[in-house]
């Protein structure tokens, strides 16, 4: 199930294939490639514009119409954003650029801690739900599904108050705690589905050999379940990397998304730097998913059912 998508399915060639219309007429081929071209433009045009904007100077940006193929490129925007020399003297007088690298670091920290914590907590819960259903386990699963429609904005108030009392507002811990609201249910759904599809024979055998339930979980299940754990881990990382609202309210531009939002309002006249920062914020999640796409898409299908 984990590699059904985005993989090359072997197909029979020959009579049946021809009969099924896999042999296309010229017209059909032309239409097909035309559609592919439209698809590519739909996805790439805004991204291309962003990337080009990050590689040209402000004066080139002002050219009308916008130079979709720039005459010259520069990496100054990236350099200035990374070294904190964006020349911003906007209100707050903090150079937004100097905060990008720390924000990327915080985003990585928050996301990584959550991945580890959630895989452990959600992993054992999902295993329990899958193999040892108890009375009330069905209700628990249903409430996890329902939790998806609780608006973040509806529960942010109590978090804000509680974190102020404990004194962890504006720290990564505020985010590591609050992000569980959406990452933990996601991880449980994905892993439960994964365990449900895993054969039980090996566990039965281990049981007959005298392994305890906990031993079975640790020695047998964890190693075989690795692809599922990787997939769930990538999705948790993605969700916490992308999260904006909790980070906006509970911290002062600690992670990348709220920093970019703040950047946007201060740097009204330096779209090139913002474009460079935006490109950099897109790279980690996109690269991560492209690397693990086979694992991730299967798990996404399972997690989406929630």
């Amino acid at each position, binding site marked *: 199930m984990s590699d059904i*998508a*985005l*993989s090359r*399915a072997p197909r029979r060639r020959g009579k049946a*294939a021809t*009969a*099924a*219309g896999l042999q296309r007429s010229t017209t059909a081929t032309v239409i097909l*490639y035309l559609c592919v071209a439209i698809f590519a433009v739909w996805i790439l*045009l*805004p991204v291309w*514009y*962003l990337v080009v904007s990050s590689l040209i100077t402000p004066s080139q940006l002002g050219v*009308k119409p*916008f130079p*979709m193929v720039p005459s010259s490129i520069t990496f100054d925007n990236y350099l200035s954003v990374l070294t904190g020399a964006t020349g911003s003297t906007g209100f707050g007088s903090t150079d937004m650029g100097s905060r990008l690298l720390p924000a990327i670091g915080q985003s990585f920290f928050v996301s990584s801690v959550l991945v580890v914590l959630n895989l452990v907590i959600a992993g054992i*819960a999902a295993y*329990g739900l899958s*193999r*040892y*259903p*108890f009375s*009330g*386990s069905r209700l628990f699963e249903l409430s996890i599904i*329902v939790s998806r*429609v609780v*608006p*973040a*904005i*509806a*529960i*942010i*108030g*109590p978090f804000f*108050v509680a974190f102020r009392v404990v004194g962890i507002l504006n720290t990564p811990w505020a985010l590591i705690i609050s992000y569980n*609201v959406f990452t*933990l249910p996601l991880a449980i759904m994905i892993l439960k589905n994964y365990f*449900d599809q895993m054969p*039980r024979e090996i*566990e*039965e055998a281990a049981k007959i050999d005298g392994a305890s339930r906990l031993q079975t979980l640790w020695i047998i299940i964890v190693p075989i379940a690795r692809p599922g754990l990787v997939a769930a881990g990538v999705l948790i990382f993605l969700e916490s*990397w*992308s999260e*904006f*609202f909790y980070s906006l*309210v509970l911290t002062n531009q600690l992670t*990348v*998304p709220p920093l*970019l*939002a703040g950047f946007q309002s201060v740097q009204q006249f330096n779209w090139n730097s*913002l474009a460079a920062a*935006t490109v950099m*914020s*897109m790279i980690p*999640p996109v690269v*991560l998913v*492209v690397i693990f796409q086979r694992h991730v898409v299967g798990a*996404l*299908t399972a997690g*989406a059912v929630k």
Partner: protein
Amino acid sequence: MAASPISSGALTRGDRLFGLKLTAPAGIILAALLLVPTVLTVLYSLHDVPANGRSLGPFVGLENYTIVLGSQVFWRSAWVTFVFSLGFVVFSTLIGLAIALLLNQRFIGRGLARALLIIPWATPWLVIGILWKWFADGSVGGLNAVLLMLGATTEYYDFLADPNSALVITIVAAVWRQASFAGILLLAGLQTLPDDLNEAASLDGAGVFQRFRNITLPWLKPALVTVTVLNVIYAFLQFDVIFAMTQGGPGDATQVLSILIYRQLFGVTQIGLGSALAVILGFVALAGGLLTVKLLYRAERQPA
């Protein structure tokens, strides 16, 4: 899914207790993080909470709800949410379906095309908003450049400053992301469709559209229901894209309910009213999701 061999029946009481123990940590965390704040928000919505939020303030019953439901701002915002959601759900689902059908064909460069599909989905919602805000910008935007090149316009136009086009552009931006998500899920569904079905139908003389209607569409029904329900929920709860692009403006043209609640809670700090709005939004999202499941599954049960 069929009942599993080890589970159901064969479980001893110790087994069930073990399952409960394994699930307890996650259960306790989620109860603390979801149930408690939700109950608190419902409580807030029934009180006249002081702006500092330190206490609940006097109990006012349903007064906050009466005020909200009697205000024009709310209904205007609800209407904007409805229009945004309708456009978002319809176009995300349809474009996603079209993309999935296209990428399920065999063509040169298909692997690359499927990798492209990942970009919008993996991009944070807020970044999508920033990206499209600038793409649609009135002075430097690429959208204007394209329209100019195509000869559709003669000069740059500030889409986000015009109340009518602002809502359309926020929908387009959100659809750009969500159509990819829908496309990925539906493509995964399509890839499980056995070739034999299509081949047999083709031998029986079924045309492309007949095969789509009678084989592909029924096969995709469960995936389509999932995708549509998720789209409905994402639509009602959408915040990031609109916040990045317009912050609800110009005026209140793109002020969906989540933006209104944000302003209510953090702009004018009316916690009681904001909480009442939040409870209403939660119910709308829940009802929308359930209604979608019901409608789509009822449609399935009817003979084609």
